[in-house]
């Protein structure tokens, strides 16, 4: 059950962030980004599907990926708060992506040693994708941070707004701790040094400073979310829930 819950946390992170990026579709600042953002969303949603499916298998109650994605409400979702933050503007969106990918990249690299074959498999693919997300989002953070006055101000606002959600990335819930002890998943806290290094490199070029965080927000792993997630799920699950048992 612990591994099931730990995989759900991970799957929820990926689905929620993938969904958020997909909200940009058709509304990006330039056509090139209307192509790049769906790529990132597809990577994340793809990973979530494998993880949901694996969680369902391990639970052994016949829950499909869609049951897990579409039939749990906001108190059951276990994603960290960072990924559910609204898109706000392109600066927030790219910074959120960078923060997440800078964590997930070393995480998936380490997860290639997982004792679970499915996790191993997804890790190999996902670590490459996360390296690309770091590059893509990181380049934008640099361009915007060292672009115009307006873009730099927006970038600083994004840093101010999102940095309070960073610490939660490195906290392992009880379920995650058990999965880590069992060798299924790597320890989240171990990713901190690598994360700090990636962000320092990007911020250096972006002329940004990572702020002091006097109070970090957390609670996502216990299903204690911001008000936005409920709306996201209401929308995402509306068709599925309106037709119980239907196939799509």
């Amino acid at each position: 059950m612990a591994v099931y819950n730990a995989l759900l946390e991970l799957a929820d992170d990926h689905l929620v962030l993938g969904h958020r990026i997909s909200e940009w579709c058709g509304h990006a600042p330039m056509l090139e980004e209307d192509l790049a953002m769906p790529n990132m969303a597809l990577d994340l949603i793809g990973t979530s599907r494998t993880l949901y499916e694996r969680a369902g298998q391990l639970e052994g109650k016949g829950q499909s990926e869609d049951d897990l994605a579409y039939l749990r409400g906001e108190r059951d979702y276990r994603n960290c708060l960072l990924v559910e933050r609204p898109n706000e503007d392109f600066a927030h969106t790219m910074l959120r992506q960078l923060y997440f990918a800078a964590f997930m990249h070393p995480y998936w690299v380490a997860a290639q040693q997982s004792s679970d074959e499915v996790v191993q498999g997804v890790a190999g693919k996902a670590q490459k994708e996360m390296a690309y997300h770091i590059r893509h989002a990181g380049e934008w953070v640099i361009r915007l941070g060292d672009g115009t006055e307006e873009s730099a101000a927006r970038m600083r606002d994004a840093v101010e707004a999102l940095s309070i959600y960073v610490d939660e990335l490195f906290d392992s819930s009880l379920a995650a701790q058990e999965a880590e002890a069992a060798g299924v998943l790597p320890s989240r806290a171990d990713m901190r040094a690598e994360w700090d290094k990636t962000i320092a490199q990007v911020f250096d070029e972006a002329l940004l400073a990572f702020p002091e965080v006097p109070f970090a927000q957390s609670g996502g792993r216990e299903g204690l979310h911001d008000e936005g997630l409920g709306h996201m799920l209401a929308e995402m699950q509306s068709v599925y829930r309106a037709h119980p048992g239907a196939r799509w």
Partner: protein
Amino acid sequence: MYSQGLIGADGRTDETPEFLEAFQQRIDAEDKIEPNDAMPEGYRRTLVRQIGQHAHSEIVGMLPEGNWITRAPSLRRKAALLAKVQDEGGHGLYLYSAAETLGVSREQMTEELHSGKAKYSSIFNYPTLSWADIGTIGWLVDGAAIMNQIPLCRCSFGPYARAMIRVCKEESFHQRQGYEIIMTLAQGTDAQKEMAQDSLNRWWWPALMMFGPHDGDSEHSDQSMKWKIKRFTNDELRQKFIDATVPQAEYLGLKIPDPELKWNEEKGGYDHGEIDWNEFWSVVKGNGRMNRDRIKARRAAWDNGAWVREAATAHAEKRRARKMAAE
């Protein structure tokens, strides 16, 4: 800067009868015309207008389908729809590039879209009101687009023809995927079947309108046929589409909303009821339910993204300056 070498691109070139005759001979010999080749100004303008409209249609077309990405009823469908909408954006990008070879920039074309000067396919001025519309759009709208575009793979203008070859492959994948969505609904619960039928009822006639006015009323047809930009008339393509689609609907157990639709043994095709041309022209003129919202959404994306594009330019400029200073 792209226009040097283009006859007539700056309006200064004489189009002598000999020149026009030689050009027509190249067309008749199925020679591909390339961007730097001499071409009549009318040929160039026709292509700019047509490729631009096509590009805009791909881009505006992302909106009605994008409307369901966040509600797609399974993760598999969500991923497939995202990928599809992304493909449409990619089509827009190739097509803008093809048009740019004729001396118009993407920015210029984008401004013309936003000002209402350039048109896009009217089909995207209809709203997507249920999940079934995602299936119907793939099946009928991508299906109609393929009918229009397969002949364009042999268009006399090289860059357009080559772009269409790649685009058509993806459009036919979209068409099959859309049909598969509708098939799933048609074999599903009563509510799903009803959703599929309702969707077909709303999209059938607008899909037929995608082929444009009757041959007699189509202003650009003759010259485009002569220049081999077009290979079939609007009515010919519409007929092909109907003949291909009716059996597909029958297979699904869905009813085409045209009481006059009937197989005509003699012509080997279906006879059909008259299209409501008042509706067609009304939507073209801007009175479709979604005309304003579509342009407003595109404009908002463009305007809200201005600071991002400016920052990218400013950053590239700073980089260049630093690199020069270092050398």
